């Protein structure tokens, strides 16, 4: 195995890289174990909500954290995934949930291509405004389209049987399915970020003119990143619809695009675990506030967190922890 092979690079560097990789793998393993045990410690429906939003935030973070593009229209993908899956599963009872989810994800990916081609033409602040405006267009289309149920949304979407065999009506079975989807999405993002493709994305984020001068077609790279991000956001929306058996306009509203930005910012932009943590905190906060006398103040409190994050907490929780760790232990 690996130990017996001769070392070609300076051994200390290889050794350190190996150790880092090993640590990372152990960490992910621990995370998976926590995920597997979690439904016995906490309410599965709540955990599923966290996982869906965490996947959504991870997808968003791929774009903001690794390509440096601030999309203000990601709600459109979440909602498209959700509506398509919801509509298909509700109208064709024979359809199994995984096929519904795949269809929703594919349509969100396609929409991502359209969004991407249009918005990549503008940068920075304009990019944010363009994505927001196109997402608003999608929102109005969902309001008027005959299949979305307008203001009421889609209700009673059946969870069905996974592969036609495993019933998802129990929350525990549903949880493990959602967890598997999350792991798939997370692994895909992790793989993308650590691939040569991901390195080029980072180069574009740091200095786009230089990446261009090195011969990279930066628009193509940004477009691919945008499409992957849109597809995974759609996957999150599709999964969410199956879990909660409904799809509504809330998911398409620009508030949702703002929420996913907040989750990513709070957890740590450009960190792999930040979005997961941010989603966990925001969803828990909404859950707790909804039952407290402060229930009506959710949006104000989110706004305050936004302002505090931007003013004094820009690396997010994971980012700040990482900084502290580096300062004290390295």
């Amino acid at each position, binding site marked *: 195995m690996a130990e017996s092979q001769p070392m070609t690079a300076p051994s200390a560097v290889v050794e350190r890289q190996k150790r880092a990789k090993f640590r990372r793998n152990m960490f992910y393993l621990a995370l998976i174990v926590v995920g597997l045990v979690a439904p016995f410690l906490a309410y599965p429906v709540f955990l599923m909500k966290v996982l869906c939003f965490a996947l959504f935030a991870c997808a968003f973070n791929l774009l903001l954290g690794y390509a440096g593009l601030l999309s203000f229209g990601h709600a459109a993908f979440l909602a498209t995934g959700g509506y398509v899956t919801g509509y298909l599963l509700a109208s064709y009872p024979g359809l199994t949930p995984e096929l519904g989810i795949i269809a929703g994800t594919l349509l969100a990916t396609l929409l991502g291509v359209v969004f991407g081609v249009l*918005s990549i*033409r503008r940068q920075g*602040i304009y990019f944010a405004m363009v994505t927001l405006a196109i997402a608003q267009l999608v929102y*109005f289309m969902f*309001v008027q389209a005959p299949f979305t149920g307008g203001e009421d949304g889609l209700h009673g979407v059946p969870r069905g049987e996974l592969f036609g065999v495993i019933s998802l009506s129990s929350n525990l079975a549903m949880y493990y399915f959602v967890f598997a989807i999350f792991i798939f999405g997370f692994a895909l993002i992790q793989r993308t970020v650590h691939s040569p493709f991901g390195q080029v994305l980072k180069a574009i984020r740091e200095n786009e003119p230089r990446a261009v001068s090195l011969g990279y077609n930066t628009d193509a790279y940004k477009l691919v990143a945008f499409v992957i991000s849109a597809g995974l956001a759609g996957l999150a929306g599709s999964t969410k619809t199956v879990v909660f058996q409904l799809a509504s306009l809330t998911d398409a509203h620009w508030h949702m695009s703002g929420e996913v930005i907040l989750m990513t910012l709070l957890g740590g932009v450009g960190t792999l675990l930040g979005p997961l943590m941010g989603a966990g905190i925001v969803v828990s906060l909404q859950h707790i506030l909804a039952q407290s006398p402060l229930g009506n103040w959710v949006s104000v409190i989110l*706004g305050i967190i*936004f*302002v505090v994050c931007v*003013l004094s907490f820009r690396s997010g929780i994971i980012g700040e922890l990482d900084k502290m760790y580096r300062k004290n232990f390295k």
Partner: protein
Amino acid sequence: MMMIFGVPMAVFMGQLTLGLVNGAFYALLSLGLAVIFGLLKIVNFAHGAQYMLGAFAALLGFRYLGINYWLALFLVPLVVGAFGVLLERFLLRRIAHLDHLYGLLLTFGLALIFEGTLVNFFGVSGARYATPEIFQGGLNLGFMFLPTYRAWVLVAALAMCLFTWFMIERTRLGAYLRAGTENSQLMQAFGVNVPLLITLTYGFGVALAAFAGVLAAPLYPVSPTMGSSLLIVVFAVVVIGGMGSILGAIITGLAMGIIEGLTKVYYPEAANTVIFLVMILVLMFRPVGLFGKEA
């Protein structure tokens, strides 16, 4: 009865003026965004909320202090503008040296706070603000009936746009502002107090939004969410026009209002979306915007 493309003249002209009035608001708001963007390089996401604050200030001022419409038209922009000055001085300035996307995020957070707070006190249904006595009724132009207040809004908004244009293009202060937009460091080296200029510019942009809010109060229901949906349309208008020129912002705003109005006549289903569709077309054929400068 006279018909235009199969639509009665009165309906056609009615929607055209409605569109023009909406366009006047787009123009005022995108103008404010452009002025702020020019010097601060941030997109003021709180612009819609500040427009809404203007309308609310007029409403509450009338309800509790008996401030009439004319006084409100003068006072509210000052008060809300002063509030904007505080926001710039104590919040935006602290992140001015960072990536400008942070400015967008900060102002977005502020917009959530303003909107959410007012929703808690006033709900989302919206209140009526009485049209001032003098503008009750309308003018009979022969081919259509024009409500006086709409005519006034059009005049006032255009006058304010021209005033802004004059201030920026024809006065010494405006020259400083334009120079600061080009190169603020050089300006500072010449001894101009750039931080003060930035603060005042933000305050002025906010005051413009508040002015639009007071104008809008008798026209639309005054509700905490009145600004946010409007702002997204204004963003599209800004993308269409590009933030390069003052006149560009005004012309694009009015033109988009008219296009929206005419869509209501001929294809009402698309009235909400037509401006976004125009934006997509512009992005495909002229990505920098109609009046934008090549980067």
